[in-house]
Every structure is written in C-alpha cells, then in structure tokens.
C-alpha cells in the first residue's frame, strides 16, 4: 500500500468554504434566488402588458414594507457578530446572539402581517394582486423558515449539544442564510413599492 497523503492532522470540522453545509446553503440560495428573479420577472412582464400599474388598485402603502426593510437591515450588525462568535466558538455569546437574532427575525414577521393589507390589493382581485402577493409570500416563507431554524438552533445551543464545533458551524451557516433573506428583500421592496410609483 502506497500512502501518499495523511489527513490525520487536519481539522474535523470547518467554516465557510471548507464546510459542506456552507456550499449546500449557497446552492439553495442560488436556486431560491433564481426563483425570486423569475417571480420578479413575472411581475415586470405583467406590468409591461398592463395599461396602468397598479392595476385597478390604489398605490401600495409603503410604510410597513419600509419598516420591514429597516428592521432587516438593523439585524445585520448582530448577524455579523454572530458569524464571528460562531467562528470563535464562544458559546455564551452565541447563545445570547441567537436569542437576539430570533427576536430580529420575529419582529419583521409581525410587521409583515400588516404589510399584506397595506398593499391595498387582494391576491384574487386581479393579476397585479396575484403577483404582489406571490412575491410577498415567497419572501415571507424565507423569513419564516430562517426564523424557525434560528429558534431551533437557539434551543439546541442551550442544551448539552451546544458546546460542539459542528453546532458552531450550523450557527455560522444560519447567519450566512440570513444575509440572503435580508438582501433579497431590498430589490423586492423596491419592485413592490417604488417601481409602480415611478411607472
């Protein structure tokens, strides 16, 4: 047997580009991102066909969406710190950081409930309403999924399973995904609230 490499000294878990789940998360972001792009494309497509836009509906009320955008952006510094703490494997900071991120996730979800009525159109009113709700629903699903994951992780980190390199990797990937949730909202926000005003 000809041994050419020995890996016994290599680490047993890793972060970022070393980690499989990081790449997996990136893969899911790519496919979900492509879903967002196509949904946004459908919005613009229907808009170009319509005589006026919004179609038979008042302009959407910008405030709830803006508040969601501000809340999401406000969560970024803590998210950034979370990534760092996870890499440092600092259990206490990660625990409380996760509690904070859970709150930062739940709060926009509450405002989002008001946002659905603030768009001033129902999904079954017309094609405009359908595509607005579709985009909003798609993004809400993403916040919801990430918040659910954050809550479970928070619970997990407070158990005996917490002090473990692999868990910190999970926390790191969770924070990575949250960037995606926040950043996808910005173009959708612009599309839903400012494009019809500019058109």
């Amino acid at each position, binding site marked *: 047997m000809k041994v050419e490499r020995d890996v016994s000294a290599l680490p047993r878990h*890793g972060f970022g580009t070393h980690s499989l789940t990081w790449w997996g998360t990136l893969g899911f972001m790519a*496919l979900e991102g492509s879903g967002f792009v196509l949904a946004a494309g459908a919005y613009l497509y229907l808009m170009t066909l319509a005589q006026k836009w919004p179609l038979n509906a008042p302009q959407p009320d910008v405030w709830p969406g803006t508040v969601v955008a501000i809340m999401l952006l406000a969560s970024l510094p803590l998210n950034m710190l979370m990534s760092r703490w996870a890499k440092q494997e600092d259990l206490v900071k990660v625990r409380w950081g996760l509690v904070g991120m859970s709150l930062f996730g739940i709060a926009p979800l509450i405002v989002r409930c008001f946002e659905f009525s603030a768009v001033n159109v129902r*999904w079954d009113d017309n094609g405009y309403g359908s595509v607005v709700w579709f985009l909003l629903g798609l993004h809400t699903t993403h916040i919801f999924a990430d918040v659910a994951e954050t809550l479970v992780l928070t619970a997990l980190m407070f158990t005996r399973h917490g002090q473990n390199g692999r868990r910190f990797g999970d926390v790191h990937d969770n924070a990575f995904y949250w960037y995606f949730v926040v950043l996808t909202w910005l173009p959708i926000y612009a599309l839903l609230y400012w494009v019809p005003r500019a058109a």
Partner: protein
Amino acid sequence: MSAPLLDTDLAPAEVSARLEAVWSEPKTLWGWFATVDHKKIGRRYVVTALIFLLLGGLAALVMRAQLGTPDNHLVGPDVYNQLFTMHGSTMMFLFAVPVMETLGVYLVPLMIGTRTVAFPRLNAFSYWVYLFGGAMLWIAFFVNSGPDAGWFSYVPLAGPQYGIGKRSDIWAQMITYTELSGLAVAVNTIVTVFKMRCPGMSIDRIPLFVWAQLVTAFMIVFAMPAVMVSSTMLICDRLVGTHFFNWAEGGDVLLWQHLFWFFGHPEVYFIFLPATGIVSAIIVPFARRKMFGYSVLVLALFATGFLAFGLWVHHMFVTGLPRLGESFFTASSMAVAVPSGMQIFCWIATLWDGRLRFATPLLFVFGFIFNFVAGGLTGVMVASVPIDTQVHDTYFVVAHFHYVLVGGAVFPLLGGIYYWFPKFYGRMLDERMGKWNFWLAMVGFNLAFFPMHILGLMGMPRRIYTYPAEMGWGGMNLASTIGAFLFAASFALLAVNIVRALRRAPGAPANPWDAGSLEWAPASPPPPHNFTFTPVVASREPLWDTPELPVTTGLHADRRETVITSLVEAEPQMCESSPPPSIWPFVAALVISVTLLGSIFTPWALVWGLVPVGITLIGWFWPKGAKEEES
C-alpha cells in the same frame, strides 16, 4: 468521548472490516427505510425510474395501437389525452431526468473516489419524495384522475376553467414533488463534486461523466425554479383564485409558456448532457484509448449549458411574438448545434485510432451517434422560424425529439446499463442477448419514429387521438406502430437479460472491462464504504496509469468520515463526518407528501401541515449523540 481510532492504527484488512460495519445500516426493515448509502439510494432511484419507463412505455404502446389504424375506437379522446399526458410527464419528470441525475447519485462518489455524497440524508429524502410524487400521479391515473392537458399543461386548457376536476392539480403538485427532489439532488451533486473529490483529482482530471453531471446540476439549479414558480402559479389560479394567467384580469396566457419553456428547454439538456457523459465513459475503455479533446468536451458541456438558457422561445415561434425576437432565437437555437457537433467530432476522433472492442455498450454508442445526429439535424430545421411554422406541433416534431431524447439519451443509457450493471449488481449481462437487444432497438426505434417525419409534413398534427382514413396517414402510422412494438420488445429482452443475470451467482470482477476510471477500483458491487482508503490520483485514467493506487490515510475507522478537498486542486482541507442512517428523511418525505397532497383539496393543508413538518425536521436535525454528530 472514547479515544479516536484512526485507520493508521489498524491493519488494512481490519480497517476494511471496521469501515464496513460502520458504513452499513442494520439489516432490518428500519434499516431499509433509514439507509443513507448513496449506492442503495441510487440503485432504488434508477430501478424506480425504470419502472416509470415501463409505465410510460405501456402508455405509449396503447397510443400507438390506437393510432395504428384510422378511425380507431380502441380508446376514446378522454383516455387518449390522459395517456399522452401521462406518457410525456412520466418520461420527462419521472424517468429521464431522475434516471440521469441518479445514475450520478450512484456513480459520482465512486468516480471521484469518495465514500458518499455531501448530504446523504437529503439524498434519501429526495428519493422518497420522488417516489411518492410519481406514485401519486399514477394512482390518480388509475382512478380516472390522470392529468389530461399535456405534459406542458398550457393554460387556459389546464387552468381553472377548462382544466376540469382535480387532474391538473395533480399534475402541478407532481411537479412540486419531482422538482423538490431534483433540486435537492442537484445541490448534492454540486457540493459532492466541488468538495469531495479524492486528493489529486484537480479539475483537469475530473471524469467527463462527472463534468456532465456537474454542469447538469447547475442547469437544474437555475432552470427548475421556473417550473416551480409556474406550477405554483397554476395551482394558485386553480385553487385560490389568483389571476396569473387570466387575460381578462391583467394576467397573461403566454406568461405560462415563457416560464414553462425557460425550464422546459434546459430540461432537454438535463437529459442529454449526462447521456454525453455516459458516451464518453463508454468510449474510452471500449476504444482502449484516452479521450481525444478532453478540454473541448468540457468546454462543450459548459457552452451547451449556457446556450440552453437562451432558446426557450423556439417553442413559441407560432404564438405571434415580434419578428426580431424570433430571429434572435433562431440564431441562438442553431448555435447550440456547435458544441454538440464538437462533441461528436471528438468522439469519432477517439474511435478512429482506438482498438475497438465490439461489446454491447459500444454498439449502443454507435446507435447513439447514428440516431442522435439525425435528431440534432432536424433540430436545426425546427430552429428555423419559417420551417417551424409548418412543422411545429406536428409529428415531425414528435419524430425530432424522440430522435434526440431516445437516440440521444436512451441509447446511451442502455449502453450504460450494460456497462455498469456488473458494478451495480456484481453480475455480467449476457453479451449475445445484448447484441440482439441493440439490433432490435435500432430497427424498432427507426421504424417507429422515422415515418413520423413524413407524417408531420403530410399534415398530421400532434396529440390527435384519431384521424380519418381519407387523410392517407394509415400506412405509415401502422408501420410506426409495428416499430413501437418491436422497440418495446427490445426492452422486454433487456428485462429478461437482467432477470437471468440476477439469478446467477455474483462473480463479476472489480474491473471487467479493464476501464481506467475510479468506480472500477472497488469490488463489484462496492462495499458500503466504497474505498477502504481514499485513493490519490495523478491522471484522468488512474487505473490505467497507476496499477496500484496510492492512498490517503488518517481517517477515523470507527465513524463515517470523508476527506474534504479544495475546489480546484483537490488538496485535502479537512475531514468531515457523514451522518449515520436515519428514518427521519423518510418520515419527513411522507409528511411533506401528505401535506402537498392535502393542499390539492384545501389550501389549509399547508397551514396544518406546518406542525408535523416542523416536528419531523427537528427530529431530523436534532443530534442524537452519534460520533458523527458530536465530533
């Protein structure tokens, strides 16, 4: 934590025995459902896809029997429409794409010298979701609720007003299942190929089959969401009254076609690209020659993958789009012929100087070139807008895409089955029957599909359940029907061959074809852990160039562990443990399937389903204290 046990602490034979124990699941019913072994999942996946091939093929035979004579009354329009919808949907969504993707699930880890895929549980989950989705579609068909609006489900015919009953809902939800599974496999493949190649397998040494799988996986990631989006819109239109496709309320009928074909055209390449990978994999050992133009072939894969996203409109040439756009899409559709041509040239150049061994797999490759080139050239014809206005939606197109998909993908697949069967099952298929199988398939296929070109030009549209005798289409339809039954007989022969082989004792050697790629290094079939020691490679055909593979040591022998390497050079970066068997992927797939099925009848099912889905996902990810989860 007990003291870690490394493979360097033990004798090689002992390592092998330990790893086999660690990487197996209990031989119980629980073990059967809980397995995360990529080979078991891959094998199930392929076998399931072949069963769907059988069902889709039977549907086609009934259709051919109906069309064999004019004014036939074997089946009425309702059944016929369900049959061709089932045939198309099954062949595209349940057979061709899954079989090609999951041949990769089985082979990619072996070919790149690793022990499993990146996310083994997600892999198991994909399989179960796919199985439940396919089963739902066919059960629906047998209770008279088979979709009947075509595999493309154009609105308004599939929409809320004209798609009567639950038929199109079932179609749309079947899409959700299969795309969920297809996307998960794609992500799995990408990460596996990126990060789990054995040391030394830098990007210029990746087998062409793996390249094909990788490019396909990328295409899936960017194209499949389109059909997810559109089928979700369709089901919303049908169930909760949205207006995406309602032209009277600001929706648009063609929005469906744009979204569907943005996925639907690349989908053809999900099927074709892996098939080219099979062709490349077969040509090298049977020509006993390294591939000429490796980098050209890789480039061609990327070019095809890229161009495939720019030609969806050629399915819509007669919908009245602006002429300028049509010209652009003519040019782009033609351009995709360039990389295909380059591939063909390189293969022939490799065969030219090869010392050929005329075994069944190679025969199927010859059949592939013979048929696929014909299909590719008629593809160039339909890419031309003016010609397409005559042949679009006629039997000419039916002939064209069967030459591309059957000639271009099923022939390589059959060759691949003969080639890899010994690896999958440890037994050789019979060569004499294989040659019969090949010639019967060639004759049957060409007799079935060549006349369709002429029928289309003579004015026979697609998807008609009957035609009057006076149209003069009877003779050629009868020939085509006879051909279809001959073609079916070739599959029956394959089935006999497989059953006979399985009844023999296993005994295929590790490398019966004297091939050079890594999947032939372990025994046939491979042990649960694939490789006792992760190999180190220094060329594209390592088994030819280094008879005794150098290896990597330093992995644990008491837990599931693999080497993670860098993206380009494949230098070891870390060791990652791989999750043990779990029943949760199966449970999660079951719960999600029931939820999706329920949502066909009431949207509230999605809300109620959240609770059990949440519970199963927590069950899936919550650590249970296995070594793999804690290290």
